[in-house]
């Protein structure tokens, strides 16, 4: 290959890799900091994570995938999750229509004929991974014109240390130095945050990833550009595979209806493989179009079969899976002990998030205030298939100058394990009717420490002396039941004779996010505020939970300084 020109020994060329069970992607970051996804020689940006061997020749990606029909025994697919695992803890189900995983010492291998010789070899999953990564690296090197030798690779949040170690070794054997593994959902959040117009805000983001063999949901707190995963869920039943199966069953039944004597195409391996490939294509077509054609030559008994399906039919057939995915997302929010009202954004990731109905099913589980980022709901959404790899490319550009030792130390738990506020910290304001004050947060819960935030707060219309109470606040969901419909006047004297019947149709209750005032932390006075003046509060919270606050009228000098120590409360003079 022409691009394999030798780099100078120290030159590091790093890319981002997303390595899924179904597809892999590669991306790099351009000079002006934008991530770009690389197409391989077949023109694919989503490269099937599949290798196939024909007479000793190695096919990769889409070419290997089409071998699932004729050469399934020598085609290896859906293997990522097997890395670094023992045979007893893997689920071989996705490999039903390709080379089956088998136990090989303490690891896993595939029995395939991968040479010209007429014999099957045990090829370990590590070796398969290395070969796959080599092909990917070559595609990237070709595109970039220099030899890629390092990468940031994305992994699911539940990838174990053993799995990472195995992947790291496999990459190394493919001449790729893994600079860092980063979590897929976090990479997706980074891909959005790295856009030039993105503002860094405090928010809770749910990343809902519906991939080919599994679905993963993560609830991520994003505070000043620092990310903390609060909860995750994984599901191996709600998957792209299952959606394909819905279509397979549908067309199989159509076929049987038309050709009664030809038998069920699902019972023949090759027919089933053809259907599977075609149905995945139909599913993808239905993400854009409202109808799609299914067309397979010689589906069964030599009969060609074509049929069409429209989108609403597909949505009906798959509605249970969509609903199950939406439930999974809701459960993840519950697991994080949050409410849908707490969620600022839902990022839909994974290839199936192209499906409009999946975005709307998930969106329906959240209030209007939650932004749903998917192609069908937001014109500026990033391609959900590319979210992981884009984040990885950005991270690669950030750390490629660091040496491995440096990265290792920076990602050490001494650096990454950080105290997070258990409650929001804010001020008590007044408003018309509430005599107790209304909590307004300045620093949200789950913010990592240390943190420094400031707030500009209004004062009463006439100015004068004001009181600033710092307090803790806890998020609270206020549920207002709908006003019961006015009932017919009850008979004169029966006051406690209530015969309410709950049969009236239920109206939706109103749910709002409010704050409960917790501990009062301190009080401070600012005297003689000008008419219409504002007060600035600056809060610094250290990792040891000590608080250092400055209160002053905006534009005034000096101000009041207060310190709350972590062990005992002390005070200090004017700032």
């Amino acid at each position, binding site marked *: 290959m022409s691009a394999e020109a030798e780099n100078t020994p120290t030159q590091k060329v790093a890319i981002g890799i997303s390595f899924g069970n179904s597809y892999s992607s590669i991306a790099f970051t351009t000079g002006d900091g934008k991530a770009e996804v690389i197409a391989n020689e077949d023109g694919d940006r989503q490269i099937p994570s599949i290798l196939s061997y024909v007479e000793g020749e190695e096919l990769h990606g889409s070419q290997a995938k089409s071998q699932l029909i004729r050469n399934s025994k020598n085609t290896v697919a859906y293997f990522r999750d097997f890395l670094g695992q023992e045979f007893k803890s*893997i*689920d*071989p189900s996705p490999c039903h229509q390709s080379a089956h*995983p*088998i*136990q090989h010492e303490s690891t896993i291998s595939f029995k395939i004929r991968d040479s010209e010789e007429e014999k099957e070899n045990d090829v370990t999953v590590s070796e398969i991974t290395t070969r796959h990564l080599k092909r990917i690296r070559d595609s990237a090197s070709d595109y970039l014109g220099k030899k890629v030798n390092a990468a940031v690779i994305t992994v699911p949040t539940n990838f174990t240390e053993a799995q990472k170690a195995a992947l790291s070794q496999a990459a190394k054997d493919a001449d790729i130095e893994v600079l860092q593994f*980063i979590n897929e959902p*976090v990479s997706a959040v*980074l891909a959005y945050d*790295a856009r030039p117009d993105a503002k860094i*805000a*405090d928010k809770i983001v749910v990343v809902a990833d519906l991939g080919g063999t599994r679905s993963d949901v993560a609830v991520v707190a994003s505070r*000043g*550009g*620092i990310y*903390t995963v*609060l*909860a995750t869920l994984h599901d191996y*039943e709600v998957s792209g595979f299952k959606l394909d199966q819905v279509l397979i069953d549908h067309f199989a039944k159509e076929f049987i209806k038309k050709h009664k004597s030809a038998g069920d195409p699902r019972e023949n391996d090759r027919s089933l493989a053809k259907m599977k490939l075609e149905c995945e294509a139909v599913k993808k077509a239905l993400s854009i179009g409202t109808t799609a054609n299914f067309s397979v030559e010689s589906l069964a008994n030599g009969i060609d079969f074509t049929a069409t399906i429209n989108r609403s039919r597909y949505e009906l057939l798959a509605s*249970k899976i969509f609903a199950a995915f939406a*439930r999974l997302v809701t459960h993840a929010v519950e697991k994080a002990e949050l409410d849908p009202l707490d969620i600022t954004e839902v990022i839909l990731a994974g290839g199936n998030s192209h499906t409009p109905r999946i975005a709307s099913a998930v969106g329906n589980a959240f209030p209007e205030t939650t932004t749903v980022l998917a192609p069908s709901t937001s014109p500026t959404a990033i391609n959900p298939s590319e979210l992981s790899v884009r*984040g990885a490319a950005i*991270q690669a550009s950030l750390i490629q100058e660091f040496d491995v030792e440096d990265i290792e130390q*920076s990602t*050490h*738990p*001494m*650096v*990454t*394990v*950080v105290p*997070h506020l*258990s409650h929001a910290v804010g*001020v008590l*304001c007044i408003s018309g009717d509430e005599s107790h004050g209304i909590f307004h947060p*300045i620093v949200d819960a*789950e913010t990592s420490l240390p943190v420094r*935030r400031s*707030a*500009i*707060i*209004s*004062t*009463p219309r006439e100015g004068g002396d*004001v*009181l600033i109470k710092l307090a803790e606040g806890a998020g609270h969901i206020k549920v207002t039941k709908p006003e019961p419909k006015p009932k017919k006047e009850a008979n004169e004297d029966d006051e406690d004779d209530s015969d309410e019947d*709950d049969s009236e149709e239920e109206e939706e209750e109103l749910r709002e996010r409010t704050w409960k005032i*917790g*501990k*009062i*932390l*301190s009080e*401070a006075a600012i005297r003689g505020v000008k008419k219409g003046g504002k007060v600035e509060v600056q809060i610094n919270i250290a990792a040891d*939970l000590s608080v250092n606050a400055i209160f002053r009228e905006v534009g005034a000098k000096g101000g*009041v300084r207060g310190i*709350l120590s972590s062990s005992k*409360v*002390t*005070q*200090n003079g004017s700032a």
Partner: protein
Amino acid sequence: MATVQINLPLPVLPEGWAGEKDFKPISQLSAANDRNIEPVGPHFLAHARRKRHKRTFSEDDRIQAQANVKKVEDDDEGEISEPEDPVLLQREAKDWKNQDHYAVLGIARYRHRATEEQIKKAHRRKVLKHHPDKKAAAGGTEDDQFFKCIQKATEVLLDPVKRRQFDSVDEAAEVEPPTKKETQKGNFYKLWGKVFESEGRFSNNQPVPKLGNEKSTKPEVEAFYNFWYNFDSWRSFEYLDEDVPDDNENRDQKRHVERKNQNARRKKKTEDTTRLRKLVDDALALDERIKKFRQEEHAQKNKRRFEKEAEQKRLAEEAAKAKEEAARLQQEKEAAEKAEKAEGKKAKEAAKNAAKKNKRVVRGAVKDANYFHAGGDAPAAQIDSALNDVDLIITKIDNEELATLTGKLNGQKDGGVITQIFQDEVKRLVGAGKLKDGEAKSLSA
């Protein structure tokens, strides 16, 4: 640094607030949670730079740092696996309707209480163990019957509609109501509590009220039985349907089976409603609290009756008393009136006497005034005229005026003064229109 804009105003400083240098610390922050931040993005790198500060961390540091970290990923190992019944493992997948789906997945101890997450995890555990590839690897046959049972169980239990259908007829989750004898041994709340808890799984309305105990209040107990007598159940019986023939050949047969199934479902539903009603009846009949409340009510009623009677008695007594009082008052009044009458008579008499006396004085005075004749003995005509005029005056004045006049005349001996007094009286009477001018000739001076 992020700045928050807050548009609600701050409160006014209360009168008399004081703090040293205008600051008053009150309490410390609540304890923080240790969590892992993601080592990703430019803001993390800035954090790492600050935190590392050219320091190097060791393996010990790693252990120490991770000691209290909040875990995000669940480990699947935590669950206790239920032992697998060898008979269960021999099941044929085609007989899936009769299998205990919970037992197949090893979550028989949770049954209808199992969460979706628990079912998923259980399924995964079973798949990892029973996938046909694993059996083949262990030298077994490629027998995938039990694996298919697992898939079927998961299909049913992860589909909310199918799961309800199965739960509706899940005999293993049923709790038989205790007999009367068992109940009367004194375990009513424990035994029946379990029954109602189990029946409550079919309720469309959640939460289901609890049976409670002997301390439950009457409204609680009433609410409980009301709930059960108005039970809104989702239980249905399509799971027990006879298979409908799938071929299009025999339409009539198909429709026949369908109709049969519909009828069977309806019948079972009716039977179930009756069963539940009887169950609630039985519980109600055995519920000591109901007896207690009835007794209390009875006592209450008696008490109310006593009170009512007492009240009536009191009212009657009061009425009698009032009547007596009225009579007494009447009597008194009458007596007083009588006395007053007598008194009046006496006064009249006295007045009469006084008037008589006064008249005498007045007439006497006429004599003293020499019949108003100036000098010498008065001629008879003058005497007559004077006496007539005085009589006229007397008839024209009432007793009071007479008394006044008498008062004025009393003790007067001088004829001129007396005459003047009479003349004044005549003038007064003329002024009052009681006498005509010149009517009393002898006195019209």
